[in-house]
């Protein structure tokens, strides 16, 4: 691939859990402005790949290239600085915080005030600015009206939107979306399609998703995982016709 303009490139990534090879020699490239779909049956290693990228599992072997530079596999706390944000499978909002506060946590990287000055109340300007970016992120997912609601009082489809607002508020270069349409009904899925298109104008996206209509609709390229290995990759239409993919995944579930 044209590795000259890679935002992110994963080469021969392997993750072993004891004797189990969760990922074996996996590769993935992401170019600026691209939406890359990561699909495969349950247990294929999709979330493990995200976890490896977020420092949640130990990488057995593999190389990571960010912005054309070789980079160590990041620790979780380094992600915001690297411009990587992730939504979690399920919901993952902080239930005791309000919607606005949840999104403000997502914007932590933008806050310049130290904790001590914040505790002493010298962060008024910073807080206002933070609130503003959080509000506009919420408005982007059409949730401006519920900013003061507690996160645990929201219906499930709305929490999905807030989770995306929380990820996009830090203006990441790379957005990892883990099943954004999981558990949603038809109208919300339609809406999620539009939102992901909209997000792609700001960030490059890697998308793990089971809903094939979403995947086919929003992705530029696909990687198909099965038993921890990439069995196909390329343009959506080409992958869709691939007999190995049909056998492993599409043919079975659809």
């Amino acid at each position, binding site marked *: 691939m044209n590795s000259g303009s890679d935002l992110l490139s994963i080469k021969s990534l392997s993750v072993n859990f004891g004797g189990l090879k969760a990922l074996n020699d996996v590769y993935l490239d992401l170019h600026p402005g691209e939406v890359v779909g990561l699909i495969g049956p349950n247990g294929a290693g999709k979330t*493990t790949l995200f976890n490896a990228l977020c420092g949640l599992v130990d990488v057995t072997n593999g190389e990571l290239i960010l912005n054309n530079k070789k980079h160590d596999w990041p620790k979780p706390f380094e992600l915001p600085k690297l411009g990587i944000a992730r939504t979690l499978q399920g919901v993952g909002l902080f239930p005791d915080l309000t919607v606005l506060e949840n999104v403000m946590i997502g914007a*932590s990287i933008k806050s310049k005030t130290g904790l001590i000055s*914040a*505790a002493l109340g010298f962060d008024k300007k910073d807080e206002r600015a933070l609130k503003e970016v959080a509000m506009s992120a919420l408005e982007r997912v059409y949730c401006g009206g*519920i900013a003061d609601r507690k996160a645990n009082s929201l219906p499930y489809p709305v929490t999905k939107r807030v989770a995306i607002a929380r990820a996009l508020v830090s203006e990441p270069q790379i957005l990892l979306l883990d099943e954004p349409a999981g558990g949603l009904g038809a109208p919300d899925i339609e809406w999620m399609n539009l939102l992901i298109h909209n997000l792609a104008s700001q960030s490059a996206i890697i998308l793990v998703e089971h809903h094939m209509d979403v995947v086919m609709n929003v992705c530029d390229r696909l990687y198909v995982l099965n038993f921890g290995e990439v069995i196909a990759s390329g343009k959506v239409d080409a992958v869709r016709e691939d007999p190995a993919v049909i056998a492993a995944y599409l043919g079975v579930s659809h």
Partner: protein
Amino acid sequence: MAKSLNLFKRENKKVSGAFNQAKWIRGFTIAAIAVWAFYAFVVDKLPDSLSSFFQSWFPASSINESLVWVICALGLNIVVGYAGLLDLGFVAFWAIGGYCAGWFMSDFFYQVNIRFGTMTPKEIPGVHISFWLVLLIGALVCALFGVIIGAPTLRLKSDYLALVTLGFGEIIPQVFYNGENIAGFNLTNGSKGISPVDNIGIFGKKLGPFDLDWKYFIFCCLTALMIFISLKIRSGKLGRAWLAIREDELAASMMGVPLMRSKLAAYAVGAFSGGIGGVAFATHVNGVFADRFTFSISIILLAMVVLGGMGNVWGVMVGALLIAWVNAAGLPAFGDMVNGALGTNINFPSYNFLLFGGVLILMMLFKREGLLPESRLKSLMHETDDASSNVGTH
């Protein structure tokens, strides 16, 4: 999607329980003055039977100590309730605050004669610093110790963290208890303690040890200060960080919340309040005595926080007042009543831990979120654990 939810229009309505400063300050002031006025003017004029009822069940003398408990419980609430770090050694900060009062407000260090803003006569040697400044010193020293104690525990998960704090909570009072000869230097006067501590000076007036009304108002102000700090920080960046860490440390970290610094800040702010409580308590009992700082204080404080409702300032205050009252007045009065009625001779106050233990077990079984829960905690606690894991493996 729920039809009732308007996702587009901003709601002007404030969230219930949101930070409403003017309102709670007004309510708190009225309550404080009402309690004082009741004891100062009303109780004596009541019919004898009613008056003696109040004096045995709600004696005025136990109120000030209750407020010290409230101050310390509010501090522990920051560590346990906000940041979710189990601390079983909070008595250490109460003790350090107390000894700051002992060192800086008495004639204990008779070798020197250092004074600042004090009304103690010049002839008395020792370090005599104004109560108000010592409050700040005690609180800051405690905050420093909070960081020192917190630092090595940061990488530990809940059970181990609790054990380490338990250790520190035992070590520090022991150091004070055995500190009369540290390489030939008498640091703490050992089991004899440091007494008396200087009187509080306020508005050019020197308060005697029995000026309980003044102390009541001073302690009320300190309590209000701690409530203010708790609410203020909760509504800001640090409070958000604490709650995020409490709920999902990993997710918080992935979003750029600094885990280490936020946790250290929780220890520091919690200890700060323990220091204020410690200094206040030293002036309340007019001295510091090492044998008072027992493990049971840490447990009682934790019971106050859990009983009241972790994370909710008002709940913790109610829990602290309730348990402090049971300890100081409720249980003895109840015991007198039962013993009087049945002709028995049971020492009820000595069974206080039986009662607290029982209450805590019942709370955990039937009302885990406490008497006055942080409204949001409620739904969380009664949820089954199915949705607890966000990071699955696919």
